[in-house]
């Protein structure tokens, strides 16, 4: 919302400075976004008289002028303007002045051998209009040596404020003035709009087909107007806020839009055929609107029609065909109330942002519908003449009858604000509320222009913002009786722990978009219609991600394209298996590319890193699970995983087949190709929600440590076994040989190749035997060893390597 200082002062009597006004506006909730003060830029331009203007000796089109800048010390100026002549009073800029219209700084110079010490400027050079036919000519009685800007009314600063959606009343200058007056910046000037008496019945009738779209519609004809450019003061006012003056009738409607937040419309009565009907549009009806564009309507939209068809898009924009021009003689002035929701929907669908829509969708003052029409009529008669008809009013102006029971201690209860006696009443009254009653609870009637005020809390806001939020003392907030206890849920703790653990494993945390392309989503088990955005910002950000892997893989590839081929990234974030809250899960995902192995990437003098593989991924998954408190001893690791992983080099970590906690493995070459990512890529994805919560324990004490006084014994075994046999089966078989005494089984060697039959492998284990009750004899140890070999052979078909 833009306005000028002098415009504000039409409604507000004040001595406050611009900066005082601006600061106060911001502090009462009308945030000043911009102040434009042309007077400052135009200050060096002063009025001056041309004493003489002789033809330049060496140039036909130039004149050498003597100019009196008002100090009695004439200066010589070379001027090219055709109207430069002796006696002219113009606008003079000395050498050194910045010329806003050209962006240049004036210098003393010689033009064709004649010195020039300044410039007589045109309106275009001043940056105030496009006029460049000649230099500015001022009336002959203009005093010289005076600053030019104030003389021309250009010293009127323009303010632009951000008006929040609830303050429709401040989309008019008078509303802003009322707020400032309440905040004691000045006094709101009295202003009463007197009815303009009609001299004859309005010949056009109005019918409202659907009162929910248009509660009221007031119309009157003014006959015999003389339309033309509006007076200078009106044009200047509109120009100052960035509007283009059109003609007096249209300019009056624009004036009232900004002065009173009351949009109006004027029809050229000669172009309206028959009576007006306010109705829903028929699907497919079209209108060439005043912005020169043709709009097609659907049956939800509301229009004003006559016998010719649609003439105006209600509350948003008028039609070109019935618009007013300089040839308009009879004008129909409309002042109506529209359904804000319908206006908002229509405006959004058609993409029209007009000043009228902006106000109607926020809500105009219903009680000002008819006074607004009278005020417009008065201005039309003043500026264009003519005779007014009576007003026809279709529908009814809704009664303003909101009364709020307001306890006077409410500002203290909600805001902690102590008010002086009578202060609440003064503030509310100055804002137009009517306060009655002398008890603790008063009755407050809400003015018609404050559709946003519904209850006590709204009144508290009014009082607090006008009294000043800075008067509310910061009050220490008691911590209360809460015990110091952890505030995070198990999942929140896991999320944090997983992040720290993965970072501790040398991975770098990324945050990638929650949405990926449909093709990527489908490749990773997603792509459900319920997870596809209806209005994605880009095609590659269209579907909610079913996995964090695509986002990380693409990120790793972008890094590779920048020359960082070996990146190790992770993300802990939400994935979406469906659109219900319980179908959103928290995943912790690692991705290693190239040679970004756990121990480090790339070449090194002490030994270079190989390609990332399934075991790097497995380490990341186990790291995540361990940090997140998963029961490590109960985890089952089974081969294989989702289709996007290498079928032979991937695994699944589960607690039984129904609770899958994590996948790990090398990315399938086809998945790499689908993402446009170069392998090798090793990934792990752990679903943190699925880790069971540990059982609550009464104390934090750890179980007692049981240490054996006897030396453990270690025995190594190498087995030849079929390639397909899993290491875990051999380990389990060995463990099963004596559950009491075997404390650990570790795989320390794996060999396939020369010396080993094809299809077989050699796998060596180290078994730790921990005596419990006594030191074992050699014979006892031998017996256990034999049992281990027998168990492993029985369970896996392995043969002890000779």
């Amino acid at each position: 919302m833009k306005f000028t200082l002098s415009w504000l002062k039409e409604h507000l009597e004040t001595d406050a400075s611009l900066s005082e006004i601006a600061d106060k506006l911001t502090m009462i909730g009308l945030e000043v976004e911009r102040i434009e003060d042309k007077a400052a830029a135009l200050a060096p331009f002063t009025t001056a008289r041309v004493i003489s203007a002789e033809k330049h000796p060496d140039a036909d089109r130039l004149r050498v002028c003597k100019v009196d800048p008002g100090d009695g010390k004439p200066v010589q100026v070379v001027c090219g303007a055709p109207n430069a002549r002796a006696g002219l009073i113009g606008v003079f800029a000395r050498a050194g002045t910045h010329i806003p219209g050209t962006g240049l700084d004036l210098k003393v110079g010689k033009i064709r051998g004649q010195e020039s010490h300044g410039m007589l400027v045109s309106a275009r050079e001043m940056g105030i209009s496009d006029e460049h036919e000649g230099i500015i000519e001022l009336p002959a009685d203009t005093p010289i040596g005076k600053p030019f800007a104030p003389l021309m009314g250009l010293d009127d600063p323009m303010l632009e404020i951000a008006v929040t959606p609830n303050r429709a009343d401040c989309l008019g200058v008078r509303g802003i003035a009322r707020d400032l007056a309440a905040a004691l910046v000045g006094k709101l000037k009295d202003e009463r709009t007197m009815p303009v008496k009609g001299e004859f019945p309005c010949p056009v009738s109005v019918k409202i087909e659907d009162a929910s779209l248009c509660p009221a519609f007031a119309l009157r004809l003014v006959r015999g107007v003389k339309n033309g450019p509006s007076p200078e003061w009106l044009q200047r006012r509109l120009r100052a806020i960035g509007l283009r003056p059109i003609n007096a009738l249209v300019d009056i409607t624009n004036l009232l839009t900004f002065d009173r937040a009351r949009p109006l419309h004027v029809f050229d009565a000669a172009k309206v055929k028959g009576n007006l009907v306010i109705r829903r549009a028929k699907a497919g009806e079209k209108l060439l609107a005043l912005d020169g564009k043709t709009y097609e309507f659907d049956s939800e939209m509301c229009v004003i029609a006559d016998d010719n068809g649609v003439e105006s898009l209600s509350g948003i924009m008028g039609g070109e065909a019935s618009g007013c021009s300089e040839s308009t003689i009879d004008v129909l002035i409309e002042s109506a109330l529209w359904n804000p929701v319908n206006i908002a929907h229509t405006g959004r669908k058609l993409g029209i942002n007009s000043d009228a829509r902006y106000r109607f969708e926020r809500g105009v003052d219903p009680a000002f519908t008819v006074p607004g029409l009278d005020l417009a009529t008065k201005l039309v008669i003043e500026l264009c003449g003519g005779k007014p008809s009576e007003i026809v009013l279709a529908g009814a102006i809704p009664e303003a009858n909101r009364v709020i029971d307001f306890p006077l201690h409410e500002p203290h209860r909600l805001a902690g604000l102590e008010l002086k006696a009578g202060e609440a009443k003064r503030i509310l009254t100055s804002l137009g509320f009517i306060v009655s009653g002398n008890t603790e609870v008063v009755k407050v009637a809400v003015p018609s222009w404050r559709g946003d005020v519904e209850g006590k809390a709204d009144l508290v806001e009014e009082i607090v913002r006008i009294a000043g939020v800075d008067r509310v003392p910061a009050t220490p907030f008691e911590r209360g009786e809460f015990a110091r206890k952890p505030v995070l849920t198990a999942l929140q703790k896991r999320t944090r722990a997983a992040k720290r653990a993965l970072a501790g494993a040398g991975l770098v945390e990324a945050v990638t978009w929650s949405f990926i392309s449909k093709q990527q989503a489908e490749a990773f088990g997603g792509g459900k219609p319920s997870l596809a955005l209806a209005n994605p910002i880009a095609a590659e950000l269209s579907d909610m991600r079913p996995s964090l892997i695509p986002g990380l893989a693409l990120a790793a590839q972008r890094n590779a394209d920048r020359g960082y081929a070996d990146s190790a990234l992770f993300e802990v974030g939400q994935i979406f298996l469906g659109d219900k809250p319980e179908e959103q899960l928290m995943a912790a995902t690692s991705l290693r590319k190239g040679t970004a192995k756990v121990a480090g990437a790339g070449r090194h003098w002490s030994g270079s890193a190989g390609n990332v593989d399934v075991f790097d991924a497995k380490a990341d998954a186990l790291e995540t699970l361990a940090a997140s408190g998963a029961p490590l001893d109960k985890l089952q690791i089974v081969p294989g995983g989702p289709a996007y992983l290498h079928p032979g080099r991937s695994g699944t970590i589960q607690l039984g087949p129904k609770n899958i906690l994590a996948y790990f493995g090398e990315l399938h070459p086809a998945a790499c190709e689908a993402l446009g990512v170069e392998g090798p890529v090793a990934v792990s994805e752990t679903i943190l929600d699925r880790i069971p919560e540990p059982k609550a324990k009464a104390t934090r004490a750890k179980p007692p440590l049981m240490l054996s006084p006897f030396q453990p014994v270690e025995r190594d075994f190498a087995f030849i076994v079929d390639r397909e046999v899993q290491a875990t089966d051999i380990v389990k078989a060995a463990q099963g040989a004596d559950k009491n005494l075997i404390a650990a089984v570790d795989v320390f060697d794996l060999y396939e190749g020369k010396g080993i039959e094809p299809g077989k492998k050699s796998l060596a284990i180290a078994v730790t035997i921990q005596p419990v009750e006594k030191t074992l004899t050699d014979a006892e140890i031998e017996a256990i060893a034999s049992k281990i070999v027998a168990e492993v052979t029985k369970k896996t078909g392995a043969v002890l390597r000779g």
Partner: protein
Amino acid sequence: MTDLKQLEAELMKSIDAAKDEAAVEAVRVSALGKKGSISELLKTLGAMTPEERKQNGPLINGLRDRVSEALNAKKNALKQAALSQQLAADKADVTLPVRENALERGRIHPVSQVIDEVTTIFADMGFSVAEGPDIETDFYNFTALNFPEGHPAREMHDTFFFNPGPDGQRKLLRTHTSPVQIRTMEKVKPPIRVIMPGRTYRCDSDQTHTPMFHQVEGLVIDKGSHLGHLKWILEEFCKAFFEVPSVKMRFRPSFFPFTEPSMEVDIQCDRRGNEVRFGEGSDWMEILGCGMVHPNVLKNCKLDPNEYQGFAWGMGIDRIAMLKYGMPDLRAFFEADVRWLSHYGFRPLDFPTLAGGLSG
């Protein structure tokens, strides 16, 4: 007994001259071996008279002890010299680089770090952390928060929508973390003190807007908390978060559908170059929005606004991260450029704590 003195002198000379362990051993054999010079002298003791033995015994034994000692000393000296020589030859180039430890390479994203910082501050004031889904219903994101249907405030949110489901309901991506306020008030009986960090979405993209960003909101509901408490909490938070002894804040009346009164909060700062310094300067920078929870919102959560009251605030996590740590561009947060992450990210063990300082 000049013989003994001479013998001692000769033996000591030989020991001294020995160049290696073999030479020392040869001297030992020649002196203390079976047929060694000292051994032979010791044998003579048996044939002596007691008086002679009493006189010569200590002399010969003394000689034996001194020679033995000298032999041992020489042997040790030679061993030390040999070890020193061996070690001197075994020399590593300690300037060769070692591989960087995983803890040196890993990084925590600034968003995670700042969420941890914010959580730490508010946990100390007795707040817990609440969360909610990113995919929301119109009810939780707008209606329950007192956004009337068709109200311009809804439009200002640039909402991402999903296609309508079989029930005709059109879900959306939450445009703010405020739906979690509703979900919390539905579930938890007051008093309520929660913060709600999370991802939020708006279909808007330019230098200062990304379609996805992070917010953290706070909510207090009880029977007496008012605007004065809200001001205090936010001031305490800003001091703790920006790690400055004092801040100056400006509360400007504003509008949010779900609070009444509503305010935007500016913090006084000094902007020089890339840095923003808080607690000094003359610029105002907007950092958050807040207000008293709107009575309609309380009613929508089945709380009586005449009995319960409270306040809420919300701010951009990415934005306060940028202000504190000086990242110039929001978009880089989500580009996963390892150079950016390594530079602006935090080390795995940089846990924010109140005891040790948030940023260490």
